[in-house]
């Protein structure tokens, strides 16, 4: 810092970024969240609604895509 006067550091940078045992977002929750695939794609089961975990698109003619 050259000859400039600076104060005492106020941050404690060793506060843990992660506590072991806690879920980490990047690992995904593929068993619990039907409709999200490991390759990053997703389908209509991502939607909420009746028995959403089981349903893809209701009719074959409908695109099996993520809901809006």
């Amino acid at each position: 810092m050259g000859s400039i006067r600076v104060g005492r550091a106020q941050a404690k940078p060793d506060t843990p970024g992660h506590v072991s045992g806690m879920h980490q977002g990047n690992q995904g929750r593929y068993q619990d969240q039907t409709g999200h695939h490991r390759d990053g794609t997703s389908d209509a089961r991502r939607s909420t609604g009746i028995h959403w975990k089981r349903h893809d698109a209701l009719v074959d003619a409908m695109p099996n895509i993520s809901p809006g």
Partner: protein
Amino acid sequence: MTTTEARATERKPPQIVDMSWDPITRIIGNLGIYTKIDFANREVVECHSTSSLFRGYSVFMKGKDPRDAGFITSRICGICGDNHTTCSDYAQQMAYGVKPPMLAEHIVNLGEAAEYMFDHTIFQDNLVFVDFCEAMVKATNPGVLARAERTAAPRGDIHGYRTIADIMRAFNPFEGEIYKEALKVSRVTREMFCLMEGRHVHPSTLYPGGVGTMPQPTAFTDYLSRLMRIIDFIKKAVALNDDVFDFFYEALPGYEEVGRRRVLLGCWGAFQDPKVVDYRYETMNTWGKAMYVTPGIVVDGELVTNNLVDINLGLRIMLGSSFYEDWVNEDPFVTRDPLGNPVDMRHPWNQTTVPVPQKRDFDGNYSWVMSPRWLDPRTGDHLALDTGGGPLARLWSTALSGIVDTPYVKATGDSVRISLPKGESLPETTLEWRIPKWSNTIERDRARPYFVAYAAAMSLQFLEEAMGLVRSGDTKVFENYEVPDEAIGCGFHEAVRGVLSHHLVIKDKKIANYHPYPPTPWNASPRDMYGTPGPYEDAVQGQPIFEENGPDDFKGVDIMRTVRSFDPCLPCGVHMYVGKGKTLTTMHSPTYGASHG
């Protein structure tokens, strides 16, 4: 010297008066312009641009987790923070060796396009136009206003104003129609931004490796419906800007000399092509040229290079008039780039910021801004590049390269053609921005609405491609990565007002060196060690004065127009200052309870 040559005219005995504006209003940060004006010959003789703000991002980034860099550097600016996040993510992606999924790139591009539309509109219509409004012109050039009353607006069928004076009245702050409509438009464009990046101006959903935006069809259709609401406003903005600026050339012959400098423009490129970009340094020239705004350095109207590697290696951070100690005797961080090219000690990768606060002295050191320059390999000159406020350099470089060829935007070699679809009231329109004869105040201001149109046209393409991916079920928006022990990275992007680069060195998984170089250090730089003035100084120095007022009621509107045409934004200009006697309170709320505090 790489400055603009002075014009030879008949001279009267000089009558020199010191005039200064510090701080300049309607910009962000502390910029001071100190001039000597010769009222007898009606021109500016000397100009110094100075900043009294020191911040020190490059000092306190050291030792931090590199993954935090995007969130911290976003706070550099309160208006283009997302440009910093994006650029930091680009640099980090190079360092980590990760390429985000296609959809993530589209989302970033859409967010950035909305930012350009928002920021250019609010700056142009609410801040720049104040210098061209009826009230200002009446106070500075009453003759021009009288002529404007008599001059019909040539593009009145598009924008709906009959005379030039009618347009100027609509520019009047707080009451003019255009001023008020622009505020509404900047709200809509900010909503578009938030759909993609979560929050304006410090994005909450941009990370290295991808985005956290939920790629639902509605995110894109909401964006599209807002875009279509403002598309007519953009067409009108281009038309009325052209009318007003053409009128200034006509009413004040010689106005092209105001703010004119040698054409020395730099553009670092924007909007990555998701199909090409892989963020590897080795292939940077290829994916740099594939960007939808082509990077390039334009000197005297000629394209010197559009290779990002050449642009990167030519960067030099000079001292000369800045409040810092030199770092040339420190140890370098990077001696060779990943291709084996030598990296100079004055390159941002090797820079060490050592601030030395001192008194301002216009014959010695007078600014906290350093002097970034680009070493021209052909001549060995250190060029004081400017950004032309952003749009001028972007359009110029894209037009000259002639690479961009998309359904809505096409670069022809000497112009850029932008097609906008039918809106609520105006039909489908093709706008053409042609390379101007000068790099001056009016052309910098004129390029701005054209670039808003450019961003709107590109976002239509990004929307179509993004919705195609969502329809095919490809909704992946994040790619995982590991932080390496040692790595280097650089990111090149365009902040709203011009070039933006972030240079990063990682050692032991921590930041060893980090240097953001935003547009304003380029534009507002002071004289370097070779005595070359920075772009503001160069543009203002020697410019004629058209204002009719004398030294007693002088407003300096011509000088202010020139400085504001660069879209100055000083918070990024210098790299925390707590005033005397201010107490900081430390609050810490640990996520998992006090035991972790």
